[in-house]
């Protein structure tokens, strides 16, 4: 957490923080020693038009909160993002089409709402590196700073769990669906940012339950 604070402090010296970022950073950071039931998580997923943050752009975001180790269904949000370039062939993966996205919200608006929801929360992604690369890039363009929020990655958690159990990790074993299979979680047929966020949230809860009671935030970071 201290490293995160340091990076925030550096950015705050370099640029003038816009109100949304300032508000998100003003919320007290959870202690690494906190019990998980006392931590608020915001589980997120994003759909993009490609894998390279320099070329592709964000098309949609989904998020849902976990409080007291329970998913708060009413907090679920799914937002489409107005695109600048055509989604091209990527439409076959995320099913989002240009005509739907043309009417959607501007990235700055979606990110502002996301930051508001994220205040005081630990973010959770499955394969955080990819999503945060896109989100940070978009945040820098919109607000001048990256998001710099505490983040947990279920892909990494699962990888570490398998390694600790000395189980071989085959290709595809760390995909969201494969991870869920190991906990007997049901397959979602639809595939979008919010279903994946919900699926990730269920995976987080299953992972935590598997590792037993009394887990602290430190053990997820």
């Amino acid at each position: 957490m201290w490293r995160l604070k340091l990076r925030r402090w550096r950015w705050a010296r370099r640029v003038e923080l816009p109100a949304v970022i300032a508000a998100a950073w003003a919320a007290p950071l959870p202690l690494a020693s906190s019990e998980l039931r006392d931590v608020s998580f915001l589980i997120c997923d994003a759909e993009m038009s490609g894998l390279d943050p320099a070329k592709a752009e964000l098309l949609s975001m989904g998020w849902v909160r976990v409080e007291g180790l329970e998913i708060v269904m009413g907090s679920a949000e799914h937002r489409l993002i107005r695109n600048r370039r055509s989604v091209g062939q990527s439409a076959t993966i995320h099913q989002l089409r240009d005509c739907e996205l043309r009417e959607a919200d501007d990235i700055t608006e979606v990110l502002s709402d996301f930051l508001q929801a994220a205040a005081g929360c630990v973010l959770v992604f499955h394969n955080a590196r990819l999503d945060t690369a896109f989100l940070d890039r978009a945040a820098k363009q919109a607000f001048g700073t990256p998001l710099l929020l505490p983040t947990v990655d279920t892909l990494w958690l699962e990888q570490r769990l398998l390694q600790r159990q000395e189980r071989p990790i085959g290709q595809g074993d760390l995909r969201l669906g494969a991870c869920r299979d190991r906990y007997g979680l049901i397959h979602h047929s639809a595939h979008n940012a919010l279903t994946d966020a919900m699926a990730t949230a269920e995976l987080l809860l299953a992972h935590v339950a598997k590792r037993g009671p009394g887990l602290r935030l430190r053990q997820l970071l």
Partner: protein
Amino acid sequence: MTDATISGDASELASVREFLRGSLPFNELNDLELETALAAMRVSYHAHGERFSVESEHSGLRILRSGAVDIRDADNKLLDRLGEGESFSIAGLNADRGNVMALVIEDALIYRLPEAAYHSLRSANRGFDRYFSSQRSRRLRRAARYQPEPNAMLAPVSSVMTRDILTVSPELTVQQAARAMAERRVSSTFVLEGEELLGILTDRDLRTRVLAAGLNNQTLVRDVMTPNPESISAQESLFATTLLMTQRSFHHLPVLEDGRLAGVVTTSDLIVARKNDPVYLVQHISRQDSVEGIADLVSCMGHLMVEWVNGGMRAAQVSQILTAISDAVAVRLIQLAEADLGEAPAPWAWLGFGSQARGEQLLGADQDNGIVIADSVGDEDLHWYKALAEKVCDGLALCGYKYCPGGIMASNDLWRLPLARWKETVRSWTRTPTGDAVMRVSIFFDIRALYGDHRLAESIQALMLEAASSNSIFLAALAGNVLDNRPPLGVFRRFVVDRNGEHRDSLNIKKRGVLPVTEIARLHALAAKLPDVNTAARLQSLVSAGRMAMVDSRNLTDALHFIQGLRMDHQCGQIQRGEAVDNYINPRALPRLAKEQLRDAFTIIDEAQASVRQNYRAGMA
């Protein structure tokens, strides 16, 4: 929230919404209530071994999305085992009895409706509330007794009325009208002035008001018609029409569409409409003069059953009717044989055993029959009965009632005996009751005379009741058999919780569901010396005799009716697909609601068996 968000959410939470909609009692909620419930819902994951009790942090209604949970009381006794789609409220369970807790037996994903939202839904929706205020058994009763299927008698009268009608002007003479009626071969005509229906003129009017009254044939129709006749609207049901016509003794009734005459319905139209009525079939069977004629009539029984079931007839009624038909077939075959062989040398009776005696046959029933002859019969006359038995059993086989694989048939010398020998046989059964022997003979204890001197059958039955009720060893052996046929809770529950489906096996719903109930009822009825043989009648008499609690009797009856209903639906499906009829049901293929109800039914049977163990086999393995 923008439009994009809303449409996005709608598609996204769809799977959760669909899941809830298919779960009891969320199926009772309207769209708005369901959305409210959805928004308040919390989701959590619980590993095997976790438990919920009144001390647990969160309360409310918990619905299993996946996994399994055991509900146990303070003594750790298993009260219920829940699987996907089932729900429980710890506070609710503890309102009935203290210290009930839920134990996760297979990792579970649980949806929780918080206490406040749960209560506001209960007070807003009566159907939702009723589910929780009532017992599991009541839920089953509703399923067994309430089946909103359309009935053939609810079809509109327009479906059977004659549209081709004869109309006459009021200014015609009765002779002209009678001539027109004779030409068209109709017994009534309508008197119209323009579009308006003035009256009706029938054969009967011509007879009583013209001929008998001595009027001449130039009398005008207007003067002798029945003015302002009763009529019925084309949308009225056959039921309402039949009721009106029988109550008022009408033989013809004009049918109006938008206030204008559209047709006529006659009493014979109504009879034709009921050609699939079982009463009609039974009467026709009794008029056949050959085995082939009977076989031909009953060959369509499968399709008739489908029709009755689709018409909303319940399982108990269908099996009653199928039994009445097989009774009629047997009786007619006996009568035909008697016509061949001449009069019986001594009084006798044709006996039906098992499901036929109980009035609980469905399709594909085997023959289970015998003959009892008065002791006055001479040995030299016994061949008459043998010849009759062979004719009747062969005839039954031709009509689709298979030969009994165990040989329990009147054509078998063992089961065609004078009364004294029958009594000897019964005594020998109860003298050395081994489990195996008891199982073989238990079917005889459901006995009914189909034809002949009923008193002969009654005296066998009286001895059976006497010998069985006073013989605790016999009853214990019988109870042992009852307990051998456990309801498939193991298999079925594993099916509920096992996602990988190792137990895809279907279950024999007759053997695992129907027989246990009939066996339980038989055991108690024999012990209480009750002469009833029908299972529902036995269960009812057991209450009157003070041998069974009302609630247990009703629960068992409902369980039986529900299982028989499933079995019947299953067989109807097979008939419609042109497959052979069997009793194997794959519980996985059942709709979720039926699955739960089947589980309820099995739970009730399981409890009834537990009480059999206590009452008849206390202290035995």
